[in-house]
């Protein structure tokens, strides 16, 4: 399936190659570079590029292109999903997935890639199996390894691959047994000029950090499971139980993992926690434009809206801006025309605003287009959909674990059209 993999950095250098079958010359990447040149933006490089003898399927993450070489029919998503899994694994191992991190750990990277694919077909992609095979590097271990010449490769052969619970390793032991769950919701919305919602959706996830000894069997139930009509699960979740009782029942993987993602799309359910008042105008014949923006909270159930960041791509004709923020700081890049305003926390008593003028190219006509405003924010201790965990129970082990649940709402792709 996957023949070879090339890693390409943002300046177009191939800094790592790996072949699972016969060696494919790196010149095959020239087709990729051609496509890269044709694309105006890095994210516009087509994910699938046909060449005379191969197909190139690539993903872009952390400004690195992961280019897989394919020789025959294979579902493109299969390859794309796998490549993302590779990036996730690197991130998991090295904390960051950068060119420097990959180069520093090139041997571990190679060992990982060797285990993840056999003859181009995925073999071990579960993080806990990989971690048994190849220990992640830590500073201490690196030092010890250099002195003693010992290795990162697990001395014992992993049993996970053989078990029927491949996502969990055996013999896990902790002195403090704890299980934390983070319910994180992101609001994707498009608000039109007049302030009415065109579309709004919630993308939620429950991320878990479970450090429990032995082989615990957990159940998680919700106060209002009906909200979750569109979900995807980690393979550990027993689907039948969910179908029948709307209860999440699972033997958790060890460590961090995503238990569940869900999607709430019916519009009436989605509360919009902030509103924007804006007045962005350009006058014909004048080299000045007005810019006024005010933010305010709404439907936040009394919780504070924090870490607010407003950004907007202004029209090409704008030379510079002269604005006055009531709080926070703003920056404007005259080259990319990107305006961003770091607002901080919204105080309902004193609404933050950004007002002032924009100077336009002299003599140029008024821009046709109106900028879109992108907003980021965070609200702690609240899931905007109203989802609430009822209880978490553990079976199969005798100790009492420490349990914790945290809620958070964030802006996803939140856009206001002007």
């Amino acid at each position, binding site marked *: 399936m996957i023949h070879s993999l090339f890693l390409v950095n943002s300046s177009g250098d191939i800094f790592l*190659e*790996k072949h699972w079958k*016969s*060696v494919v010359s790196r010149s095959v990447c020239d087709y990729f570079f051609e496509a890269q040149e044709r694309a105006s*933006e890095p994210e*516009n490089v*087509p994910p*699938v590029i*046909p060449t005379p003898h191969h197909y190139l399927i690539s*993903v*872009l993450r952390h400004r690195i292109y992961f280019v897989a070489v*394919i020789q*025959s*029919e294979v*579902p*493109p*998503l299969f390859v*794309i*999903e796998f490549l*993302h899994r590779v990036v996730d694994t690197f991130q998991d191992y090295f904390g960051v997935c950068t060119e420097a991190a990959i180069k520093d750990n*090139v*041997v571990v990277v*190679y*060992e990982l890639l060797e285990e993840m694919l056999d*003859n181009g*077909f995925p*073999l071990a992609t579960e993080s806990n199996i990989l971690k048994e095979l190849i220990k992640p590097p830590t500073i201490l271990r690196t030092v010890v390894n250099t002195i*003693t*010449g010992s*290795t990162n*490769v*697990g*001395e014992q052969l992993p049993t996970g*691959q*053989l078990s029927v*619970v*491949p996502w969990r390793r055996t013999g896990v032991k902790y002195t403090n047994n704890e299980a934390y769950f983070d319910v994180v919701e992101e609001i994707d919305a*498009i608000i039109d000029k007049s302030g009415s919602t*065109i*579309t709004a959706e919630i*993308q939620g996830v429950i991320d878990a950090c479970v450090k429990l000894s032995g*082989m615990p069997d957990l159940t998680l139930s919700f106060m209002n499971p009906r909200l979750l009509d*569109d979900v*995807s699960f*980690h*393979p550990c979740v*027993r*689907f*039948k*139980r969910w179908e029948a009782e709307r209860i999440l029942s699972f*033997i958790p993987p060890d460590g961090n993992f*995503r238990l569940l993602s869900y*999607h709430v*799309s019916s519009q009436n359910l989605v509360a919009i926690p902030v509103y924007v008042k804006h007045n962005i105008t350009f006058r014909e014949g004048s080299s000045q434009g007005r810019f006024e923006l005010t933010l305010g909270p709404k439907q936040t159930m009394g919780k504070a809206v924090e870490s607010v960041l407003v950004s907007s*791509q202004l029209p090409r004709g704008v030379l510079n801006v002269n604005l006055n923020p009531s709080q926070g700081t703003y920056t404007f890049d005259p080259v990319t025309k990107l305006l961003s305003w770091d607002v901080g926390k919204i105080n309902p008593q004193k609404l933050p605003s950004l007002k002032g003028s924009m100077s336009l190219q002299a003599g140029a*006509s008024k821009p*046709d*287009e109106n900028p879109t405003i*992108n907003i980021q924010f965070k609200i702690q201790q609240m899931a905007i959909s109203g989802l609430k965990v009822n209880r978490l129970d553990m079976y199969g082990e005798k100790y009492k674990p420490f349990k914790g649940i945290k809620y958070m709402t964030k802006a996803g*792709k939140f856009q206001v059209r002007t």
Partner: protein
Amino acid sequence: GRWSICGITGNFTNICVKISLSCRHDDLKEMLDSNKDSLKLEAMKRIVAMIARGKNASDLFPAVVKNVACKNIEVKKLVYVYLVRYAEEQQDLALLSISTFQRGLKDPNQLIRASALRVLSSIRVTIIVPIMMLAIKEAASDMSPYVRKTAAHAIPKLYSLDPDQKDQLIEVIEKLLADKTTLVAGSVVMAFEEVCPERIDLIHKNYRKLCNLLIDVEEWGQVVIINMLTRYARTQFLNPNANVSVSAEGKEDKVEAAALVVKRKPYVMDPDHRLLLRNTKPLLQSRNAAVVMAVAQLYFHLAPKAEVGVIAKALVRLMRSHSEVQYVVLQNVATMTIKRRGMFEPYLKSFYIRSTDPTQIKVLKLEVLTNLANETNISTILREFQTYIKSMDKDFVAATIQAIGRCATNIGEVRDTCLNGLVQLLSNRDELVVAESVVVIKKLLQMQPEKHSDIIKHMAKLTDNIQVPMARASILWLIGEYCEHVPKIAPDVLRKMAKSFTNEEDIVKLQILNLAAKLYLTNSKQTKLLTQYVLNLAKYDQNYDIRDRARFIRQLIVPTDKSGALSKYAKKLFLALKPAPVLESPFKDRDHFQLGSLSHLLNAKAGGYQELPDWPESAPDPSVRNVEVKYPTCSMNIEQSSTEEQKKSTKSKEPKDRSDSESEDEEESSTESSESESEEESESDTDAKKKKKVLLSISINHTLQGTSLRYYILKKWRIYVSFCVALLLKCSFPSPQAASPTCGPLKTYELLHRITGEGLAVTYCFSRRPFTGDPHMVSVQIQFTNNTEVEARSLRVLEPKLQSGMRIAEFPEIDVLPPGEISTVVMGIDFCDSTQAANFQLCTHTKKFFVTIQPPVGELMMPIFMTENEFKKEQGQLMGMNEITEKLTLGEGCRGDHVIIQRVISTANLSRVPCGSAMECRFAGKTVTSGSLVLVTVVTKEERAAQVTVNCEKMLIGTMLVKDILQALSQ
């Protein structure tokens, strides 16, 4: 002296470069040759880093490959990485490593067997194809499902190395398809798809099992299985939508349609078809986008129309994922929306475009929105399009204008609105926007030109401003085509164009010629001179296409004496009524490719693509999928030795409730799994195999470890190596003459009689495999049978009384042994190379028994592999006191080599050494504790006379062993 000569001849620099190159690697070679693992590891790390950067490290091959048997796991792994990378280029040298992997294939640890097979099958050297074939066949019937999975992975590797092996490989695939474990299922279907996707008949018997296992298979396997089953279903079941489509098409003549429906049998879905739909549906909830897509395409291609809708929600959910995932999903949604618009209509707003989307995503979303447009939602969509037109991304604006054009052609009601909107865009400041509008308006006007002469007039004026060639060409074409609607303006446009002719782009020039010709034919009075002028300009144009066109037009329209019959028809040729262009989606009819495939995405057949067959007219026999259900006759509950594995077996019940599998299937699979876990049970069987394979391994390895390996010597070895391989092969194939020796069932000894044990019977045997955890211990396999009516609890070892130096590794405590059950555990004893007994107590929760294990001398050793030469050399060093020779007369039944071999091997844990002479049999081994060599030679003479020689440092062992062998052979 030599160097100076080179310098004189001028090659000096050249050689210097070569020296420095080899010098650079000399340090690595030195490190690899050293005794320190840390140095070796450091060298291997640097070499792997070189490979990763794409640097050539092939000259290190001899230095690296001799570390293939290195004890350090990481060094070994990195050597494997290197070997797989360069084996193809250095075939001869690569062969030297094969024996290491062959040995690994026989390791008692399943993970080592699997990894040996994995590396062996990755070495792309054609000469070892038969060895690989044999290894795959063996592994396919391995006890461990993990090894069987590896065997499945190895099949496509071998196939790509040598496609002639196809028939044999299909046999293996057939065997593995019948496997009932989830671990194997995905991998073998993958192999099936690569080797023999056309052999759909192999699937019949496994179809239901695959459907039932599906939910527990790992995610990558799920994708492959679902895609394959989609194809399978298309050949075996009837189209669930056949009747629906007939009645839908025949709306006008309903009577006929009704008659057709009556003629057909009422459609009943095959239960197997239903099974597939039911068992794949939960996977729409998978976190893996590829799995969701696979299920979606299965539903799209196989489900009744009314049920396809479920996939829409899942696909919309995927759109939140990474942009590459979004890109692929949108391509597929675009195709689906053409056939099944209804199912995505509720999600219209999910396809709205954000200013931050990459352009390629925007364009695809636009495509979907256009496909979804109908009379009811068009006003919403057009309003949305309005905002897109104002975007700063001009490529996207152009695509939006095209989309508006398509909405206008598809939905008659909004055609005028759209046209007006587009005309307004003609005054846009951005030229690209205007140009795109012109092109689209041109297409729209062609549908009803008579109504829109004012728009044509408006566009005629634009020629002064618009510079985009495609737009200018479109305007000129419009004016020429509909010159009757703008009789006054048209000649004037031609006049202006004639003026600027030489500066225009080629496509514009061609349209000027076109316009001139049409005007000449309709209004020659006003335009005759202009036309001639333009034609003259064109005659001398640089582009031959334009010159040709000018010549052609002149001949056609200007009547001369020579002009042929065609000029009469000039008007008909130029001013024929042209059909309006159909603006259709580029995704139309793409669903003849299986959705989700690479071929679908590229809209071109990719290599290895399997066509999605059409539904059959009548259903093939469904009984081919029937499987006789074998009920397990007896189910033994075997407790595993380690507590870990106990946990595993309790776990194994857990995920089962996730699957829909029918009860008989479940039962089957549970016996299956217990079978696989109890490898020890089938001891004798594997042992027999092991013995057989002992013969196969000729150890080239020993030489490998020597440091005197030099490349140039190796070149001379070529012949020797091929000879060895030939030998390997010869041995690998079981030939009928040289029947392979088997040691028969292992001897079982009694540890505790059921009467003395008050119902608890204990036996033991020597399993002859290395004791995991301590290589200096002999593995003793102990079997407990509870013959009482009550359960025995906490069976364990207590207070071992041992001679000095002896050690015991106790078996893990058995918590419970229910009445009537049998349990097997393994313990390790270090006998210190003596036959003295190990005494200890066996305890249950109530009682204690004193027991004794005394090993026969033959069990104190383990086999090693030697060549004939090595054997002779070692034997030469163990003469005198260390050699014991006895003469004997062979027993009645002891005739022929293979009987002798079998008897010796069953007496002592030794391996056979290849031997040139037919009269001699040689065996080698070493003692478990001290590793002293044990060499045995049996020479047969005339009649039944024979002679046994044992060479061993430990004289006591030698003496005892000779006695035992004498006894065994004289029986």
